[in-house]
């Protein structure tokens, strides 16, 4: 119970630190202190000075952070400087596209990883093992964006490209988990008793490995989110990755930091979920 509580507290700390980092980046971004009213000839020097002092007081980092966090809790992440649209609206519009791509890609990568790891460990056939290891190694050597471009030019869906990028990065861990399980005394005893292979697979392997595979989900999701930026940007997918790329090119820091906060929260939540499942097991 205490362990689970500490995991949840860690999630809260992550979000608070992430929010602080995001607000500090926005606060100290170039041009943040520039007020367009300072060039307005209608204001007197005294008025401008008063406005400047008020702005300085409101923009001290702790106060700015509290305002930023309070607004973020209400769903207000500010406005994009380059697009002049509320960041929350942009996220609402684009999140489903990225969500679908990340979910399908992660699921595909994990499923591929399970099958390849199984093929490398279970039948003990050198050909299968070499095929699984070499395909993982080859895919690891290709930049995910290049992989996605190959799919894009063939007018194929992009989620398999994300899956092929995720698969080699989770394959090693999945293989190690399965190797440990196949060497476990319980499984060896079951084999010696002549238990059917399907029963061994379901009861002794899948059931035992599932919590660890779920814990891997967090890692796979972080990876998939990382691949999404170049893939969406190069393949013209109107998702969050493309939005982040456009924000970087136009130096739209409020948008970048809003995205960072949301992505940190999403990924940390998934990791926490994985850790909770792991601690339950």
């Amino acid at each position, binding site marked *: 119970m205490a362990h689970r509580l500490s995991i949840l507290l860690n999630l809260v700390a992550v979000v608070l630190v992430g929010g602080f980092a995001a607000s500090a*980046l926005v606060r100290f971004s170039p041009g943040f202190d520039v007020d367009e009213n300072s060039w307005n000839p209608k204001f007197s020097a005294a008025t401008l000075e008063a406005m400047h002092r008020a702005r300085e007081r409101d923009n001290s980092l702790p106060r700015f952070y509290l305002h930023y966090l309070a607004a973020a809790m209400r769903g207000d992440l500010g406005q994009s400087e380059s697009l002049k649209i509320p960041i929350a609206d942009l996220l609402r519009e684009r999140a489903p596209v990225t969500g679908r791509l990340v979910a399908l890609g992660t699921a595909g990568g994990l499923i591929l990883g399970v099958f390849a790891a199984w093929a490398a460990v279970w039948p003990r056939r050198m050909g299968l093992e070499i095929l699984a290891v070499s395909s993982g190694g080859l895919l690891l050597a290709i930049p995910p964006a290049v992989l996605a471009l190959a799919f894009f030019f063939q007018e194929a869906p992009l989620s398999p490209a994300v899956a092929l990028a995720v698969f080699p990065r989770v394959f090693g861990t999945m293989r190690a988990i399965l190797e440990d399980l196949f060497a476990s005394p319980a499984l060896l005893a079951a084999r010696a008793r002549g238990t059917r292979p399907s029963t061994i697979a379901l009861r002794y392997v899948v059931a035992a490995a599932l919590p660890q595979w779920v814990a891997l989900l967090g890692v796979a999701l972080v990876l998939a989110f990382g691949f999404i930026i170049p893939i969406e940007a190069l393949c013209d997918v109107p998702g969050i990755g493309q939005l982040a790329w456009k924000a970087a090119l136009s130096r739209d820091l409020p948008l970048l930091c809003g995205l960072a906060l949301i992505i940190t929260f999403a990924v940390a939540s998934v990791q926490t979920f994985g850790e909770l499942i792991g601690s339950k097991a």
Partner: protein
Amino acid sequence: MIWIRRVAWAVLIPIVALGIFAPLIAPYSYDRQFRDDAGAAPSHRFPMGTDEIGRDRFSRLVYATRVSVLLAPAAAMASILLALAISGLLKYGRSAFTTVCLSLPWLFLFIILRAELPLNTGPAVSVALTFGLMGVAGWAWPARVFTASIGEMKQSGWLMQARAAGVSGWRIATIYAWPHLRSIALAQFRVLVPAYILSEASLGLLGLGVPDPLPSWGNLLRDLQHPEVVRSNPWVLAPLGLLMLVMLCLELLHSRCEVAL
């Protein structure tokens, strides 16, 4: 599998040498333009042809190898040093700050940091900043491993004995702790180098990495966005081939090579 490693080294060493001796090997400078030969097909004069503004593709590939192959280890070294410093300072395992850095896709973190930089930075400074930021942004992964290892070390009897004997903190770190951490640092270095090579390629493809006219494998890969260029001159795939070759060799060096080949 010693012979696999030997093959990997045999491939890697000439590629690294190509990068180190780029000015001696490349027939032209990476930014020299032959305006009458823009978009030229491969020929005796230009073995891989020229790009759309008349620069020799072969010379640019040789110089790109220098940037990508030599600076990625430097960035990895920076990450390791930073991770060691931060892990030494962290008292209680994984901090929330480490977790934030691990939760955020590093490419995302990188583009945020990149967006903070001034627009008028020159190519050389920009290259240093690109790899420098990679080094800074990538500290969290090795830090997690170092922190766990330092945590274990703090519980060990030899450390308590050294402390009880009044050995100074600096001496404990350099004489007692470093030999334990060295192998971990080396393993992390081997993991980070290919990761940074691949990351530079992704950033270059996005136009956020090494800026023109300085070539890198990443910005040379941008030609792959135009299938008609690939069809007319397959040599534009050479940077991808070289990148994959280096990545495969690094994987072979790093892997346990358990497959009984």
